[in-house]
């Protein structure tokens, strides 16, 4: 196995208890030999103690005492497996409790979203909700897993009908890349191995898709954005005048000699060196963590952003955001919140609630301004200082914010800049 050329892919799964999500994850982990013997024995013993007739694979991820007591998933669970081609991180999100909050969290970093459909039921309310969240969070690739095909006699017609129904609905969404796979997670059809029961299906298996989907363009590599995290100044004899701006490239590609501008000051300079522990680099691109040195001594500190002179983000204080609310205490119109955006800290006031989005139908409710936990709404905020923003559609890093309650310090909402 050549691990040095293996890539990382993050995907999210969402679903309820009955659509076979645990079985699907269990199947992928089992078939890629990622479930260990002692884990298997431990969950076999737990399942038996609970009086369950089959091994409950959900116990692999439901690690908390209260989850095991109640038989539910409370929180996003992360699972890991790898094949010779890729390493996978699954953000497994529960479908029932706090579904929006958890789905949004899991989706925020995902390359791929898996949406499960029970072939017997077709597109249901929950399917639409999952697809809408995947679209709002701009997950680049969506895989619709039409599961339990064994229970509809592996019928091509059933598959085609569901596919058509989903496509009709998805045309209203902003999903660029949708893929359909008929499968039976229980029997393993089209999960890792090709199904012998569905010779009419000419597409790839789920595992083949996950191993091969092109993720090289998932980052924005056009618009150069470098939010400064911290300044490195060793102040030793050897590195007396060293002043490096440490950060993670959020967009575009930076090279030595590039003409750059620092925000908010607007001062311009040239990249003298892109430095790292492993030596000087010729180029830096997302999501690399590097240190940038400039030719001129200009004032740059945490929260500032280094960009290309001819391609700058919007510098704004009045910003429209799609917000997903996470807290029991509803969003307060004209309320003040702390805000985090890239490496900047600010405060903001909620100036207006434009509409609440019905995440089952995409209907915009202009009347209801009461934004409660798990609601999604379009709001206008004003920040205490200018933020350097792109639309979320353009860049998921420079286009996202979180809202923090100033009294409790809890993260109460997540926002995508429009």
């Amino acid at each position: 196995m050549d691990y040095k050329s293996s890539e990382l892919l993050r995907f999210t799964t969402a679903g309820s208890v009955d659509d076979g999500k645990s079985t699907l994850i269990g199947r992928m982990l089992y078939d890629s030999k990622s479930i260990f013997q002692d884990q298997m024995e431990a969950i076999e013993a737990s399942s038996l103690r609970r009086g369950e007739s089959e091994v409950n694979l959900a116990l692999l991820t439901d690690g908390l005492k209260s989850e095991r007591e109640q038989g539910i998933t409370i929180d996003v669970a992360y699972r890991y497996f790898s094949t010779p081609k890729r390493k996978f991180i699954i953000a497994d999100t529960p479908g029932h409790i706090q579904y929006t909050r958890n789905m949004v969290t899991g989706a925020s970093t995902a390359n791929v979203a898996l949406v499960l459909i029970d072939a017997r039921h077709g597109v249901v309310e929950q399917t639409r909700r999952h697809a809408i969240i995947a679209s709002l969070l701009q997950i680049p690739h969506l895989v619709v897993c039409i599961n339990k095909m064994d229970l509809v006699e592996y019928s091509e017609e059933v598959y085609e009908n569901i596919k058509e129904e989903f496509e009709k609905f998805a045309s209203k969404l902003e999903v660029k890349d949708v893929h359909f796979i008929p499968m039976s997670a229980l029997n393993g059809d089209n999960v890792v191995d090709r199904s012998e029961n569905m010779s009419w299906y000419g597409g790839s298996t789920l595992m083949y898709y996950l191993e091969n989907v092109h993720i090289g363009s998932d980052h924005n590599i056009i618009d150069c954005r470098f939010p400064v995290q911290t300044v490195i100044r060793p102040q030793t004899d050897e590195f007396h005048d060293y002043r490096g701006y440490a950060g993670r490239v959020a967009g575009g590609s930076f090279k030595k000699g590039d003409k750059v501008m620092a925000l908010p000051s607007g001062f311009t300079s040239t990249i003298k060196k892109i430095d790292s522990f492993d030596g000087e680099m010729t180029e830096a691109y997302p999501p690399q963590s590097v240190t940038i040195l400039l030719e001129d001594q200009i004032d740059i500190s945490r929260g500032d952003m280094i960009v290309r002179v001819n391609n700058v983000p919007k510098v704004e204080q009045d910003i429209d955001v799609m917000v997903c609310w996470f807290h029991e205490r509803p969003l307060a119109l004209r309320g003040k919140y702390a805000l985090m955006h890239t490496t900047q800290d600010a405060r903001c006031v909620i100036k207006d609630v434009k509409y609440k989005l019905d995440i089952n139908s995409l209907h915009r409710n202009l009347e209801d301004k009461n934004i409660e936990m798990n609601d999604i709404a379009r709001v206008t905020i004003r920040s205490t200082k200018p933020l350097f923003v792109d639309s979320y559609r353009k860049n998921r890093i420079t286009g996202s914010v979180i809202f923090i309650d100033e009294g409790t310090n809890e993260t109460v909402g997540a926002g995508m800049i429009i």
Partner: protein
Amino acid sequence: MNYQLNHLKELESESIFILREVAAQFENPVLMFSGGKDSILMVYLAQKAFYPGKIPFPLLHVDTGHNFPETIEYRDALVEKIGARLIVGSVQEAIDKGMVTEEQGVNASRNGLQTVALLTALEEGKYDAALGGARRDEEKARAKERFFSHRDEFGQWDPKNQRPELWNLFNGKKRYGEHFRVFPISNWTELDVWQYLAMEKVELPSLYYAHEREVFERDGVLLANSPYIEKKPTEVVKKMMVRCRTIGDVTCTGVWASKATTTDQIIEEVATTRMTERGGRTDDKRSETSMEDRKKKGYF
């Protein structure tokens, strides 16, 4: 130009980002160092994050007094090499002061007592962020852990009320007296750690490679023979080729029969093994939720 990192470089970049966030968001962080491979990886990543500067926080070792001597030798050499400041929190001291009571009998371990020594050291140093090398793939309670994990003024973890973490925005805001545990290598698996250490040619303590050692078997786990463990009359000491997959206190760290003497052989062994690395940790086996129970109280 192919703008795609390999998975190890992407994990490295994520961890460096977290380490720099900690340096920027907190006033007085500390890196918890056990001498195990994960904390060695953490120190290595911290060197990368702040290069060419030194690591801007001290290392904290919670010493149970029941160490493998190789761990202490390695620790002292590393600290000297990178010019770091080392703080030692002592479990022996906590016992001597009567803050904790030593367990007795054949299963006695100081593992649980570490929590008190750790919380005391954090309080004395007024540290507001403690960096740890825990990974989500290690244990089911750790699978629910955040990168930035909030602790109240008693050092407790409330797993049901954690802050959601989205994109790369990490909320480290807290009230006076509270602190954070931060886990920069959350997304790494055991295999990732080994592959990365091999790729980067990082030197590890000799304990991780197969060597001959006196061992005995208890509940299906091989334990190293040591004056700190009381043996039952039926337990027979024998010499075997073994290596450690995790390193903790001598009393609760299982060793594994192995012939792997190089990092590449270890990678092969890890890739084909059917047992998790904590399968040898008797501290996890005390009950189904023993990790969660200890974590809630402030264990790392």
